[in-house]
């Protein structure tokens, strides 16, 4: 068990080292990088919009419910919703959703390529498969996740504001007043830093699990499951570490 854990960390570290070295040695293949921008970024927008809107809406309803009987200005609901979304929920919830969508896709793709010898075929042509397959995915993840965070935060705030208005809980101007009252640019920066880290965690773990997949269809299935579960787990751990260090 202990050996397996060391072995796993060793392989993961080796893959990251190879990725770092190959990205310094050669320009990552641009076509693949562009494709990953589209797959990780553009194609994730619908699910991020949905996640953002409902997170904001639920936050508004629950905060209003919790503060319902307190003698506090209703604009505070806007403050709490805004800060919660910017600091925590937009980054974490969207990343957990993306661990399923992006992480599973990457692990399955690379795992299938591994067990069907497509990665061997790339290597046998003289291509650096890590540079070709892993580097573009990790780079695209680290660059696209902050963008998706901004989209999630913006739609979350919109969802929260609209929910307040439509349920007669909170007028729009009160929500905006509260949002502005406790808005700190650092919160947005913090959310973006978190999303870069989460993007790295999801793409690197999924690449690792897919790249070293073994055992046919069942093995690819196991790799995909492990990639998703491990990504979610390490997102929560990293969330705690970053909050402890940066707040």
């Amino acid at each position: 068990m202990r050996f397996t854990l060391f072995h796993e960390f060793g392989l993961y570290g080796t893959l990251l080292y190879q990725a770092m070295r190959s990205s310094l040695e050669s320009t990552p293949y641009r076509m693949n990088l562009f494709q990953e921008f589209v797959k990780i970024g553009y194609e994730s927008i619908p699910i991020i919009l949905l996640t953002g809107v409902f997170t904001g809406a639920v936050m508004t309803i629950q905060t209003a419910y919790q503060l319902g009987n307190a003698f506090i200005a209703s604009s505070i609901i806007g403050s709490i919703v805004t800060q919660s979304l910017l600091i925590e929920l937009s980054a974490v919830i969207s990343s957990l959703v993306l661990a399923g969508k992006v992480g599973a896709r990457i692990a399955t793709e690379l795992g299938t390529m591994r067990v069907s010898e497509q990665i061997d075929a790339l290597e046998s042509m003289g291509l650096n498969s890590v540079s070709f397959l892993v580097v573009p995915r990790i780079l695209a993840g680290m660059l696209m996740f902050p963008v998706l965070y901004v989209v999630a935060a913006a739609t979350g705030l919109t969802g929260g504001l609209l929910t307040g208005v439509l349920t007669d809980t909170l007028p729009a101007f009160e929500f905006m007043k509260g949002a502005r009252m406790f808005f700190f640019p650092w919160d947005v920066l913090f959310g973006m830093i978190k999303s870069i880290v989460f993007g790295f965690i999801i793409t690197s773990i999924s690449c690792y699990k897919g790249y070293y997949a073994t055992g046919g269809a069942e093995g690819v299935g196991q790799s995909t499951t492990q990639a998703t579960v491990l990504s979610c787990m390490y997102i929560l751990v990293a969330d705690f570490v970053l909050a402890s260090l940066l707040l």
Partner: protein
Amino acid sequence: MNPTLDANSPAETPSEKTLIQVRGLSKSFGSTVVWNDVNLDVYKGETLAVIGRSGCGKSVLLKHFNALLTPTSGDVLVDGVNIFELDYVGLRQIRQRFGILFQGGALFDSISTYENIAFPLRVFTTLSDAEIRDRVMEALERVSLAHAAERSTAELSGGMRKRVGLARAIILNPEVLMYDEPTSGLDPQTSDEINDLIVALSESLNVTSIVITHDMHSVLKIADRVVFLHDQALHWMGTVEQLKQSNDGPLRDFVRASEYSLA
């Protein structure tokens, strides 16, 4: 264990014709030994068949010839250069001298048949689109699949996938063509077509061929020399004629089990 070398076997007399030298090669996965102390020469222009039971490590041996796998111990020398001591650039140059047909074709399923074959040219050459088109169509014509250029790889049959894999393997004009079970999973007629193709490519491209197979019909049709892996070792090697006359017990058993009569 030293392999049985039939009298006058070319393997006994390495010469300037030697392209690949395998020296003391051993491979284990964890505690599982695949084979030990394999010594073997591959000569320029010959077709070498590697035979043996399923799971005896034929494909594993093949993947050591271009360093897709690294051995537990031992060396593989290509033109006298130990490929396991090369840096990535040196290894890339060696790998591009080899073309390999993988067991299932290993076609990239996200792109078309045409793009699969064009892929090495796009990555490693500065050819124009028109030149790439000419080269790809020429390769497809060699494998009689010019009509399937724009098909998705998912639409291809098993035999077609192997032929597309072969077209991709020859597109960079390799010196060595390696075939991993080229006829497995194919009907006898398609297998025969693939065998004919291997012979035709060996002659027309003047390449050295290494064929992993357990199909004795293929062996007798295409091979100049045969290597038999058995009991975690290189058990026997010799020419096809020597194979036909050999009285080696495990080799005779293997040939008999494949329901092929030598005499």
